[in-house]
Each structure stands twice: as structure tokens, then as C-alpha cells.
């Protein structure tokens, strides 16, 4: 059975987009549990994952039943950015993903919190969390970029590999009004470039989005690893239709 939320409201669409970002990234971070590179990072990554999961629950609940939306939707109905669904890779990839996303999320929620739209209450809390996530990612980018030769090479590979998923973040999200998206993108780019330069890394120069005219995550078009992630995430819930937990 597939449940699709009533798409009567643009707010619902926006809540799904933002909620799916948080849900999916939280899930990926949760995959680190038990094998982070250092014990402090078990705590830190779990903190971030928990913040995001909390945001996801609020946002999905704005769009419908949180568990139905998380566990009974098919891949093509998820609206998250392709960036957040990318596999963890090594720690550098996880940090690069965190850097790109948390700067975006911090800037976006900062603007949403300042407005009076339906997401302002959530954003007021989320902006503080995102500030911590951003700081965490920036500190690690500096450490890895400006650490050893190996960590520098790994961090450079990571920021290069994920660069092509960063353009999608600045496509306007239906249902989110009053955001100057090009301005957001400029600010994001300045902030990210500043960190990369301080980390002695080269700012990637490849394309920031794919050539596929059909679209990307916000249109429900995802990357192949996402399907397997969903299979693991949804299997138990789907195995017991109608059960409560």
C-alpha cells in the first residue's frame, strides 16, 4: 500500500521537502552509530541526527501522519535533496555533506525564522540546531583539509564528489515564500568558499547540478543508493501493516 499525503496545500509540499531532507540525512547519520572514528563523534553525529529527526517529525506532521509518510511512501514520492541521500562514504564525505547542507539549512532557517510563514516557529528552533551542525562541519573541514596529506586528499575528493549535488538546494521550493533564492545561493557560496579556503582546499569548479532535464530530488527523482536505504528503513514497518509500535 502506498500512502500519498493530500497535496491540496503548497504548505504540505514544502513541509515534505524540508521534512524529507531532515529525515533522510538523519537516517544516514544514524548509520554511523557504533563505528564513528572517535567516541566523541559517536555523540556528536547522534546529536545532529537527533536534531534532524526532531525537525523531520514536526515537518512531516504538518503534512500528514509522520509514520505513514516516512514508512509507506515510495521512493518517487520523497522530496528530499539528492545531496542528503548520498551514502556516508568515508568520514570526509560525511563531513562534506554536512558542510554543504548545514550551511544551506542554517541560512534558510534563519530567513524562515525571521518571517511569519507557517515554518517560522520550527525554523526558530532549527536555526539554533543548524548553527551547531554548521560549526561542527566547519571545524572538521578545517581539521581534515588542513590536517595530514591523507586527510587533505580525502577531504578534497569529498568536496569535489558532492559538489554536483549543491545546485539543487537553490531551486525555489514551492510553498516557501519570501526567500531570495539567488541571494541565499550567493551567501551560501561565499560561506562555503571561505571555509574551503581556510581549510587549504580548492573550491570545486565542476557543474553544480546534473544534466538530467527531468529534475532531481525535489521532483522525486533520486539516486540509486536511496532505494536501498528506503528498503532497510521501511521493511519492518511494512511487514506489519496497521500495527502500532
Amino acid at each position, binding site marked *: 500500500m502506498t500512502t500519498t499525503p493530500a497535496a491540496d496545500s503548497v504548505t504540505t509540499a514544502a513541509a515534505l521537502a524540508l521534512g524529507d531532507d531532515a*529525515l533522510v540525512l538523519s*537516517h544516514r547519520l*544514524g*548509520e554511523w*552509530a*557504533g*563505528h*564513528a*572514528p*572517535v*567516541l*566523541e*563523534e*559517536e*555523540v*556528536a553525529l*547522534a*546529536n545532529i*541526527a*537527533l536534531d534532524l*529527526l*526532531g525537525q*523531520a*517529525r514536526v515537518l*512531516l506532521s504538518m503534512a500528514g501522519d*509522520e*509514520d505513514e509518510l*516516512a*514508512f509507506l511512501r515510495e521512493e518517487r514520492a520523497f522530496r528530499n535533496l539528492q545531496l542528503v541521500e548520498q551514502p556516508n562514504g*568515508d*568520514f570526509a564525505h560525511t563531513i562534506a555533506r554536512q558542510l554543504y547542507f548545514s550551511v544551506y539549512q542554517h541560512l534558510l532557517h534563519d530567513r524562515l525564522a525571521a518571517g511569519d510563514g507557517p515554518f517560522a516557529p520550527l525554523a526558530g528552533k532549527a536555526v539554533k540546531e543548524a548553527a551547531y551542525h554548521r560549526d561542527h562541519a*566547519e*571545524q*572538521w573541514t*578545517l*581539521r*581534515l583539509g*588542513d*590536517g*595530514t596529506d*591523507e*586527510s587533505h586528499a*580525502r577531504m578534497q575528493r569529498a568536496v569535489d564528489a558532492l559538489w554536483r549535488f549543491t545546485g539543487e538546494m537553490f531551486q525555489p521550493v514551492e510553498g516557501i515564500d519570501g526567500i531570495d533564492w539567488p541571494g541565499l545561493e550567493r551567501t551560501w557560496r561565499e560561506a562555503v568558499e571561505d571555509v574551503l579556503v*581556510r581549510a587549504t582546499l580548492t573550491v570545486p569548479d565542476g557543474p553544480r547540478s546534473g544534466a538530467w532535464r527531468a529534475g532531481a530530488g525535489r521532483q522525486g527523482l533520486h539516486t540509486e543508493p536511496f532505494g536501498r536505504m528506503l528498503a*532497510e*528503513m521501511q*521493511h*519492518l*514497518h511494512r511487514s*506489519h501493516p*496497521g*500495527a*502500532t*509500535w
Partner: protein
Amino acid sequence: DAFQRAFDAAVAAEERIEPRDWMPDAYRATLVRQIAQHAHSEIIGMQPEANWITRAPSLRRKAILMAKVQDEAGHGLYLYSAAETLGVSRDELLDKLHAGRQKYSSIFNYPTLTWADVGAIGWLVDGAAITNQVPLCRCSYGPYARAMVRICKEESFHQRQGYELLLALSQGTPEQHAMAQDAVDRWWWPSLMMFGPPDDASQHSAQSMAWKIKRHSNDELRQRFVDICVPQAESLGLTLPDPDLKWNEERGHHDFGAIDWSEFWDVLRGNGPCNDQRLSRRRTAHEEGAWVREAAAAHAAKHSNDTTGATRA
């Protein structure tokens, strides 16, 4: 000598021994061994539960489970810190764990096969741990005792969450109920083994009790645990897999069946269902994280004199 007499007097007077106080070498060694084993158990113990984070069946349960596994990492941090007050670094202890020269609790060598196992671990394994650990809050060594206060508080929260998870299953669909019963059937006996061998076979107990590291015998604590669990199992609507389990009016305790100690020793020797998996996953995580730790150290060294670099994690 005078140091020894002061130490003995402090222990006798239920005072806390602190890191700078003189203490007998054997006391220090016993504490290091015990605290290290406890710390290792926290971090190895993350694995069986982390096995279900990605498959948790509701977002609420997923958040609870993530937070619990995170708490275990936190407990590991407190405990390695407590061990450091005795002069051994976390790295040394981890090396010993990875080399198989220090133990962790054998209970984590059993697999989590269904979602209900997450509940059974909370209810039974955390329950047994608390029964073991509450007396440690009065342990003669101050840093360990204080770490235990904080840990016990969180553990009892986890224990209630595990109970509540099982209750939801027990009262759920027939499949969910069966899943809960199956988990309890598999975790009950290993939980009883968590209190260690019977008193007559326990190596370190007498000295630890004299030092007031340990306050009760293994069998005493095991009995206490059984007495606590029986009524809880009834409230859960689940049975404990022991036909010999019954109230003994005379003793004022529950009698219970014989524990299969050969399984206990076998698992302890490394032949449990998950020993290889747990240790090899831990080693792999450590090895794969080496470049990250090296990078952090190199960065800190480069930037020890400036304020623009990243601060230590």
C-alpha cells in the same frame, strides 16, 4: 605502613578514595580492569542496538533508540575518563580491547534478531546492569562512584523504555506479541549470566568486597534481579522461559532453574554467536578512523598557537 593504614581506615569509614590519594597497587589494578571492562561494554554494547536504528518501525522509537545508543557512547566517555584518573589512557585501554586482552560483557555476544530484542535488551540487560551498578554508586573509588550515579540514572530510563517497548508489542498484534515473547525467551538466561559465575566460582569477589568496590555477591544480585523481573513479566503479559521458576515462601525469594554455565564459559572464551563480529567491527571502525584521529592531532599541532584553526573536538 601509614599509607596502607590511612587507606584502610578511609575505606572502613565509607570515605571516598580520590585520584591523588595513595592506594594499593592491586586496588588500582582491580579498578582499572573493572572500569575498562565496563567502558568497553558500553561501546561494544552499542552494536547490537545500532543494528536496529536503521530499521526502527516508527520515528518516535527511532529517536528513542538513537538517543539510547548515544547515551552509551556518553557512558563510555565518562568511564574512560574515570579510568584515566587511575593513570591509564583511553588509547591504551582500546588497544587492549582490540587485542582481546581486556573483556567486555559477554551479553553483547548475542545477536539482536528482531525489533523486540531492542526491548528485551532494555528491560532485561539494562535491568541486570542496573542491579549490578546501583551498589557501585557507593563504590570506594570516588570518580567511579560518581560516574555510576549519572550512568544509573540514564540506565533506569533506558530500562523503562525497553519495558514500554515490550509492553506495546505484547499488547499489539499476535505477531508482535510472539516477537516479544521470543525475545524474552532468548535474552532471559543470558541476562542471568550477566551477574557472573556463582559465588563459589567467582575469582575476584572477596577482595573486591573487602575494598568496597563490590557490595554484594553475584548470587545475591542475581536473586534480586529475578525477584524484580517476575512481577514485571506478569505485567507485561509475557512468560519467563524457566519451568522451575516459582515463589519460595520460606526463602522469601523466587527459586529458579539451573543456569547452563558451560554456555557462559564458552561465550566468555570467544565462541559466542557474535564475539568475532563485535570485535572485528570495533577494530575495523578504529582502523578506518585512524586517519581522522591523525588529522585532528596534526591540525591541533599546527594551530596550537593561533585562534583561527579548529578547536579540539
